[in-house]
């Protein structure tokens, strides 16, 4: 059991990384989202781009704190 303790946050962090990756794919590859933006095509790409950049920063932070690599 003692070996299980550090694995818990590690697994949680890995889940966060995967969840953020899926979020990015979902918002950019879910067609109805691009259909409803109307005249906001440019804003759609700018906002999703910023979300992507921020997600990567969080993924890196979480990954590093989990002691990956």
């Amino acid at each position, binding site marked *: 059991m003692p070996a299980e303790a550090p694995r818990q946050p590690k697994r949680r962090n890995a889940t966060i990384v995967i969840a953020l*990756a899926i979020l990015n*794919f979902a918002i950019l590859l879910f067609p109805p989202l691009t259909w409803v933006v109307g005249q906001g*095509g440019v804003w759609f790409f700018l906002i999703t781009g910023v979300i992507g950049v921020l997600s990567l920063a969080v993924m890196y932070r979480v990954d590093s704190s989990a002691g990956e*690599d």
Partner: protein
Amino acid sequence: MEILIGYGGIAAFLIVLFVVLQRTKGSADFSEYATAGRSFGPMFSAMAFVNTWLPGTIFIAFAGYAASAGAIGFYFVAYSILAVVLMFLLAKPVHEWGRRFDLRTQADLLGLRYGSTAVRVIAAVIGVIASFPWIVLGMQSLTLVFEYLSFGAVPAAGAALIGIGVLVARQWWTVRLGARGLVISDFVQGIVAYLFGTVLILGLLTWLLTNGHGFGEVEPSFFTLPGPGSVDGPLYLFSLIATGALGGWCWPDIFVRLFASNSTHTIKRAAVMASPLLLIFGSSLCLLAMAASTYPGVADAPDEVWFLTASVGGPIVLTLAGLCVLAATMGNVGANLQALGAQIANDVVGVARGTRVEDPRWGKISVGVLTLLAGAVAVATTSALSSGMVALAQVSYQGIVQLAPTVFLGIFWRRGNAAAACAAMVLGFATASVLQVIYPIAIPVLGGMTSGVAALAVNFIVYIAVSYAMPSNEDEKRRVDELFDSLQTYEEVGQAR
């Protein structure tokens, strides 16, 4: 006088670059030639990725698409962000397996994962076939640079030949130095093309916005994206982004950049560093192109939007704009030639001879022959150069994206096997080719889905079905389990250290 500024600027940039390359050491063996000895840190890795990822035609055809179609032109920014997310996820298995098994190419990794020479050769051949048109297009994309920077002194045909000649000559260093020379030159070229390029874009955008070419003047339809009832079809944009994101890591030149980094951590850090650069540069360029759509001449020649806009700043600004295109093109073409040359030597010649290639001369010969061949095809097809460059780029993507199930499911799913990979790649590539001939742009009955994405659906289904229908034998399962389990072992050893 003006041509002296234009061509002189190019000469000065090339001299600086060649001085840097002359100081770069060569490779002792084939592995170092193909992977730069897995020695580069995050800064070099990030810039090598960006300079390989964004071709010079980003300033021409991609900007032209935004200038002629509006917001949909941003699609390359979206797929670039997704590609970086995938880069983050691929970092660990690709780097760790690469280091442990001395992998040199994408096909090499697939051969290891599936324990199959057939998978390795098929992947290598598809990679070469799909990438070759991209190299030719890259060589031809300098036509506008040398035409504009001659200020009317050199016609388009002559400019095309000069551009091809410069790129072929520049490959002397690619042939000689391999991946190490490329990564170092990518750093210099990347600073010029994307960092300096972004500053130039923002300056030109400011000029446009303050001189009667604001976004209020742009056609309202430019701000909408295709949806139900649109000409392109509701799934057209989805197809463009999916093809770009998944296809990105199927390109041999992009994939092999992961092997040049010195650790998994470096690749992940490089991904984090590359993403804001891609977002800021790409978005700025698209905004510039959209704003410039009302500038005189752009509607008639959208591919020339970058040069037409830069012309407002006079010969020096136009020369700087040309240097951005040149720097971006050299990074992409050089990377492609080096990766394909290494792949042919390692995964075709090496397999045919039944030996593991160790002598870097095989790589040099292969890259040299490919360079001359691409140069000859580029010269022979110069007159075919038109504003359809994006369409040609998309054709290449339809083919290369057919490696995606084999690459991604192979790396992230233990159950996939060689039979599934071979069947999926061959059927996917054949389906994409047939659909592409019938539907060059999109398939109306599938809501605007492109041939590559439709074929990808077939490809994924075949891969999964064959993986379940023809499972690997126990020995192969054990081998694959050990391969995946070894990633955990590295992690634990790393932490113990």
